């Protein structure tokens, strides 16, 4: 190498591996996107550029149906989990540590520690019994289950935001005649809002991505986009799935970009 300067932070081979990792991380995704524009139905042989798979997917009634269901569940679960996570964050961050708080943290992070398949099986057992007992078969079960595992994702950015907040601001609001509710409404809420929106986005993406728990909790005819895709992948592979994947990918990137911008503005 021509450059013989000694850099302390350089380790031989590390850069090569890193660049390789980035390429390998994106290559499969890129191929998937590229083949969603394939003229033929092959996912390996290129048969010219075409947009046909997008309208085809859209006109597929089943795809529309599962997409709507996915969006409904994700919206509801994101809203519910963010609301309760916001409340829990308010309850856990602004006073000195107590024993109960460790329990609350443990409970909130529990979905991250237990393998999804175990939770899925456990929910299958419980909800099957409730379904028999009440006769209710609606989307409520899915929304409830999704809300639960979205809570840690919604809680994280909210808590980070609250911990960065100067508590004197609330004292100051009280000093200036604000009732506790007014303090929350005019001071605390506006300040944690970016955290709450970030939490909402993460929760939405997390719910939208879920396969396993949905698979076990859903009643007949309650496929979501991921479970539908899983069935499709097993059956036959059609470029239609690539098109749906690409759209989902775009949605994720948009939400994540929003999340990044929101959490970065803090500094």
């Amino acid at each position, binding site marked *: 190498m021509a450059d013989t300067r000694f850099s302390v932070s350089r380790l031989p081979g590390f850069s090569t591996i890193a660049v390789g990792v980035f390429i390998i991380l994106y290559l499969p995704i890129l191929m998937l996107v590229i083949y969603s524009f394939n003229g033929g139905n092959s996912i390996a042989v290129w048969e010219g550029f075409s947009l046909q798979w997008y309208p085809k997917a859209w006109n597929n009634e089943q795809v529309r149906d599962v997409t709507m269901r996915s969006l409904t569940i994700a919206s509801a679960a994101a809203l519910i989990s963010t609301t309760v996570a916001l409340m829990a964050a308010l309850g856990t961050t602004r006073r000195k540590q107590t024993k109960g708080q460790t329990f609350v943290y443990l409970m909130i992070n529990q979905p991250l520690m237990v393998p999804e398949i175990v939770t899925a099986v456990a929910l299958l057992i419980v909800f099957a019994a409730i379904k028999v007992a009440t006769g209710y078969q609606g989307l409520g079960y899915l929304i409830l289950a999704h809300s639960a595992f979205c809570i840690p994702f919604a809680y994280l950015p909210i808590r980070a935001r609250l911990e960065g907040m100067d508590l004197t601001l609330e004292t100051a*609001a*009280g*000093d*200036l*005649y*604000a009732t506790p509710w*007014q303090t929350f409404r005019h001071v605390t809420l*506006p*300040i944690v809002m970016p955290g709450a929106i970030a939490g909402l986005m993460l929760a939405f993406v997390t719910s939208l991505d879920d396969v396993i728990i949905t698979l076990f909790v859903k009643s007949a005819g309650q496929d979501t986009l991921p479970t539908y895709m899983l069935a499709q992948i097993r059956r036959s592979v059609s470029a239609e799935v690539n098109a749906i994947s690409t759209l989902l990918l775009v949605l994720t990137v948009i939400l994540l970009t929003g999340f990044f911008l929101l959490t970065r503005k803090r500094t």
Partner: protein
Amino acid sequence: MTTAIAVEAQSARKDYGSGQFAVRALDDVSVRIEKGSFFTLLGPSGCGKTTLLRLIAGFETPSAGKILLGGRDITYDPPNKRPVNTVFQSYALFPHLTVAQNIGFGLQMLGRPKREIAAAVDKMLALVQLEDFAGRKPQQLSGGQQQRVALARALAPEPEVLLLDEPLSALDLKLRKEMQRELKRLQTETGITFIFVTHDQEEALTMSDRIAVMRKGNILQIGAPREIYNHPKDRFVADFIGETNFLSGTVEEGAIRLTSGDLVEAPTQGRSGKVTLAVRPEQVRISGAGDPGSLAATVADSVYFGTDTHCHLRLADGTEIVARLQSAASGEAGLARGDQVSLRFEAGAAQVVDE
């Protein structure tokens, strides 16, 4: 006494923590603060100044005792029900609101009509000379400007009492002097009772009508600046406010015999036996050796400070006394280490203080 009392603490006590970690931050403090006065709480770090202020503001409830506002018991009223506002040490300006919205916040919470709020905000902006900054966010202001916003915000609802917890400590020296005058002006103009916390004795002396000197949760002495400076009640107060020479001696026929053997005239306040005398350095005079009625001393050291020179003198028994001499006026330049001189205290300068 006919002057009205704005705030009164009656045996206010505050304990933090419990068991072996318990701290008594305030130890049955009683104090009356006159309406319309500039009252200062002065004391070293951790003496309980902030705690007393927080009890008055309502951020904390006392462990025992009472807080009265205009004669009314407000001990258990929440802060938003007290016509008392605070200027926080860290300013605590709302980062998501503009300067104008910050200043109008209190009135908005009180449900005042928009028109009235706008008028009050304009008046306050003029008062603190920030008319051009109404639309800015607090982060876009300098420290001094933020300080003014915090003041204006606390003054806007026209509270009966304004509490200021070391509001100037984050400012540099020059700005600090400027704000001291500004604060005094605002207090005179508005006529609101100010309770000001500081651990800077000079700040306390220049601004206050009355000063309470605190130590370890107690108030040691309350009085006007001159009174506290000239007649400190005990050694701690004398030492904390300004520099002081302490001399030990014994009462002897209405005068005091120092350990060096010299006899000093001073009001003995009916004491007898061993006492401590306090003498301010600027009240020590020096003349040529052998001056009758003076104390004989040797120059140990002389330190030049620009406007004055501090001359360290040693009495016969080795007791050290510092004299502050104005550089221009005195013949200090002629003093060299080892010179024999006479020293004398100005009339009434020597004070007997409690240990």
